[in-house]
């Protein structure tokens, strides 16, 4: 079994997305999509992919979460940011994100954080 991850970022942004892809390799595969292409790709995954929003390159994160939440009410949406603040974290959760994480360069930290998020979601399914 494997998880499909969709990272909404700039497709030419090869730094952190590539790192994230490698960090999450043991859990599944990660595809990078642009904001404009996100809705179509999420629909192709039938709302079953875990969506990660790269806040560093998205202009209006809250509007994007709201749009995605409307498109797929149950999709797991995670916001990743290089400069987390408590206000933006609160806004993201209230818009419908299930987590708000630091855009870490520590692969172990990223993997553990994602496992925690998936663990919570899996527990709900039981």
């Amino acid at each position: 079994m494997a998880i499909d991850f969709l990272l909404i970022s700039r497709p030419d942004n090869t730094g952190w997305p590539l790192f994230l892809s490698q960090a999450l390799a043991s859990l599944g595969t990660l595809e990078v999509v642009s904001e404009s292409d996100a809705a179509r790709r999420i629909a192709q995954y039938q709302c079953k992919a875990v969506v990660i929003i790269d806040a560093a390159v998205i202009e209006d994160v809250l509007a994007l979460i709201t749009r995605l939440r409307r498109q797929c009410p149950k999709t797991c949406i995670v916001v990743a940011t290089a400069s987390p603040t408590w206000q933006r974290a609160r806004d993201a959760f209230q818009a419908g994100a299930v987590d708000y994480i630091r855009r870490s360069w520590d692969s172990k930290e990223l993997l553990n954080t994602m496992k925690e998020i998936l663990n919570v979601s899996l527990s709900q399914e039981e």
Partner: protein
Amino acid sequence: MPKATILFADNDPDFLKTRAEFLEQEGYLVIPAANPTEARRKLETGRIDLAILDIRLVNDKDDHDTSGLTLAKEVARTVPKIILTGFPSYKYVREALAPQVDGLPAAVDFLDKQEGPEALLRAIQKALSAPRVAQAVDIAARIKPEEGGDEIQALGDRARTQRKLWLLMGAFASLVLAAGTGIGAVISGDPRLLLGTFLLAFLMVVCIIIWNFME
């Protein structure tokens, strides 16, 4: 008649008094709590519509004190809670607002004390009007059968294994106690001990049956 009953937990008596007076003027019944023990007791026993919890309920100077968050996670899970703190951080927000294993976040809102009483009032009105529904995330459906996903399966199995272990320990404890009371009943001939033996044996059987169904 008050609009709602609100438990307000804060270890700063002046802040607690000021905010309680403000909320009472707005028509709410405020039940104060000055420490985690008092807040826990009132949350567990009282009819509380909403709880407002400070994060550092023991010592404001101790950044390891997250007793308010612990309360929010552990006690009266169906009561909506607002976390109110003088030391906001995104990590605290994550702990407060990210869904827990039951699908509900520990709190429905998170406020900085510096945001003032009007922001608190708005948060209360919003919390009381919103349905407390678990945010079900359809994770199982997003798992596709492929090779090499053992870790995911292991994550899902962990919670079930823990529950099964508890049931097994319960059955074993019941067996030991039933044996003890049984021996006591035979020696003393006391019918109450005999009844206790039967009840414990019954409990053991119930644990085993539930354990079996979880296979």
